[in-house]
C-alpha cells in the first residue's frame, strides 16, 4: 500500500545513490518538484532514464547527479538544445555522462517489456539506423512463426520511477489524465514507485481516459502542488512556455546555471 509522505521523506526513503531512476511524463506531468528534492538531498551517481530528458534532466545533469542517461530525444521542446546535457556529453562537465540512446518507439517498448516483466520487446524499428551500433540494448530477433527479423530492445526496469499525477485519495490510489504518455508503463516497470500529486481528495470520481494506479502498485504518494512546473498538470495548471524559453539563456552558461539552481532549488524548500 502506498504511504502518504512528505516529499522530503518520500525521496529520502525511495531514491538511493547509484539507483536507476525514471522520471517520466511526456511533456505533460513532468515531476519537477521531486527532481528538485533529489538535487537538494544530494543523491548522486544516478542512471537517469527518460524518453525526453527535457529541462528536468538538464537540471539534474548540470548539478552532477547523473553518471548515465538512457533516452530517445534530448532537446528543449520547441526552443533548442539542452545546454547542460550537451556540456556534459561534449566536455564532461560537471562529470562525464555515459549514454544509451534509442528511438521513441524503442524506449516505449523497453518500458512495456519492463512493465510486463519480460526480458525484451520486439518492434519494427531501427532498420538501417546507426543507433544499433552504439547501444548494447538494441539487437535483433527472428520471429519463430514468420521468420521476419525484428528489432529487439532490452527491458528497462528502473529501481525507482517518479511521476506526477493530478490527485490521489487518502488510501494512496492515484489518478492521472490528459496526455498520459508512458507513465503507467514506467511505474509498473519499476521496483519502487513515487507519485507526487496536486492534491489528496476524499474520493476519485471517474474521469474519461484516466489512468488509475491502485495504491498497492505505488510505494509513496507526496503532495506537491504545481509540482510539474514548468511542465503542467491538465485541469490544474498550464505549461509555462515562457519558462522553457527563459531556460535557454539561464542554462547556456555554467555560472548562470549554478546561480539559478542555488536561488531556485537549493535554497528553496
Amino acid at each position, binding site marked *: 500500500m502506498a504511504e502518504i509522505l512528505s516529499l522530503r521523506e518520500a525521496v529520502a526513503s525511495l531514491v538511493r545513490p547509484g539507483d536507476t531512476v525514471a522520471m517520466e511524463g511526456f511533456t505533460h506531468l513532468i515531476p519537477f518538484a521531486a527532481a528538485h528534492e533529489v538535487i537538494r538531498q544530494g543523491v548522486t551517481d544516478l542512471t537517469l532514464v527518460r524518453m525526453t530528458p527535457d529541462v528536468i534532466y538538464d537540471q539534474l545533469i548540470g548539478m552532477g547527479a547523473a553518471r548515465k542517461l538512457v533516452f530517445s530525444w*534530448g532537446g528543449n*521542446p520547441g526552443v533548442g538544445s*539542452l545546454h547542460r546535457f550537451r556540456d556534459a556529453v*561534449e566536455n564532461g562537465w560537471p562529470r562525464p555522462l555515459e549514454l544509451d540512446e534509442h528511438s521513441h*518507439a524503442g524506449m516505449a517498448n523497453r518500458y512495456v517489456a519492463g512493465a510486463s516483466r519480460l526480458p525484451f520487446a520486439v518492434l519494427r524499428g531501427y*532498420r538501417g539506423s546507426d543507433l544499433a551500433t552504439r547501444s548494447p540494448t538494441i539487437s535483433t530477433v527472428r520471429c519463430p512463426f514468420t521468420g521476419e527479423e525484428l528489432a529487439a530492445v532490452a527491458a528497462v526496469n528502473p529501481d525507482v520511477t517518479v511521476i506526477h499525477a493530478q490527485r490521489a485519495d487518502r488510501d494512496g490510489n492515484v489518478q492521472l489524465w490528459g496526455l498520459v504518455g508512458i507513465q503507467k508503463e514506467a511505474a509498473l516497470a519499476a521496483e519502487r514507485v513515487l507519485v507526487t500529486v496536486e492534491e489528496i481528495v476524499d474520493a476519485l470520481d471517474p474521469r474519461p481516459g484516466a489512468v488509475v494506479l491502485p495504491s498497492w502498485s505505488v510505494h509513496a504518494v507526496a503532495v506537491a502542488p504545481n509540482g510539474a512546473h514548468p511542465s503542467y498538470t491538465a485541469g490544474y495548471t498550464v505549461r509555462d*512556455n515562457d519558462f522553457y524559453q527563459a531556460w535557454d539563456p539561464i542554462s547556456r552558461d555554467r555560472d548562470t546555471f549554478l546561480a539559478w539552481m542555488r536561488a531556485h532549488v537549493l535554497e528553496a524548500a
Partner: protein
Amino acid sequence: MSWTPDELMTVNAARALAGARTCFVGIGLPSAAANLARRTVRPGLVLIYESGTLGSKPSRLPLSIGDGELADTADAVVSVPEIFNYWLQAGRIDVGFLGAAQVDRYANINTTVIDRGPGRPEGRLPGAGGAPEIAAGCGKVLMVVRHSRRNLVERLDFVTTVGHGSGPGDRARLGLPGAGPVAVITDLGVLRPDPETAELVLTELHPGVSAEQAAEATGWKLRTAPDVGETEPPTAEELAALRELSDRGA
C-alpha cells in the same frame, strides 16, 4: 505583397499535404506546415502527435508536442506505446512530416551527432525521437529543411533515420514498409528523389530563386530536373492564415 523565405517554405510544405488524410507531425517547421494545411489546402487533415494525440485541432501553433491544447482538441488521446505500436507501426498513417539537422542526397537524416574533426568531441544533437520509425512506417515522408550546405550535406556523420539508404531498392532490402521521402521542401525550392536513382534532384524553384543559388547552397552536386518548375507565389489567404497562426503561437 512580400514574404520571408521561411514563409515561402512553410506555405509550400503545407501545399504538399493536399489530399493527405492523416499526418504524423514533427514539432517545429513540420507542425507549422501541417497546421497551415488544415487552414488552407486540407481542412480535414488529421494531425497526429507523438505525445499521443489523434486528430488535434489547435487554434495556435503549439510550442511543444505536448502542449495542452493538442490533447484538449484531439479526437482521442492515447498512450505513447499505443501511438507508436498500434497507429504508426501498424501502417495506419499516410504521411510522416519531419525536420532534420543534416540530410544527404538519398534523404537520409542525421539528428544524433556532428563530427567536428579529429581530437575534438562530437557535437551533440537532440537524438532520434520518433523519426526512424515515422520514416519507416508512414505511407510516405515529407521533409522541411532550410536550404544550406550545413543542412544538406555530402555525407552524414551518423545515420539516425533512413530515407532511401544508399539508393534504389534499399528500402525494400531493409524491410521498410512505406515509400519513404517523396519531397524535401526548402526555402529555395523543392527536391524530389529521381525515380531511377532515388537521388534528390531539384524539381521546383521558388519565385525569384535560381538553380545556381540552390546548387550553391547544397553540399552535394545537386542535379536539376530537365523540366524544373516554379512554385506558385504564396496567396494572400495563405500568408494571412500563416501569420495568424504564428502570432497566436508567439
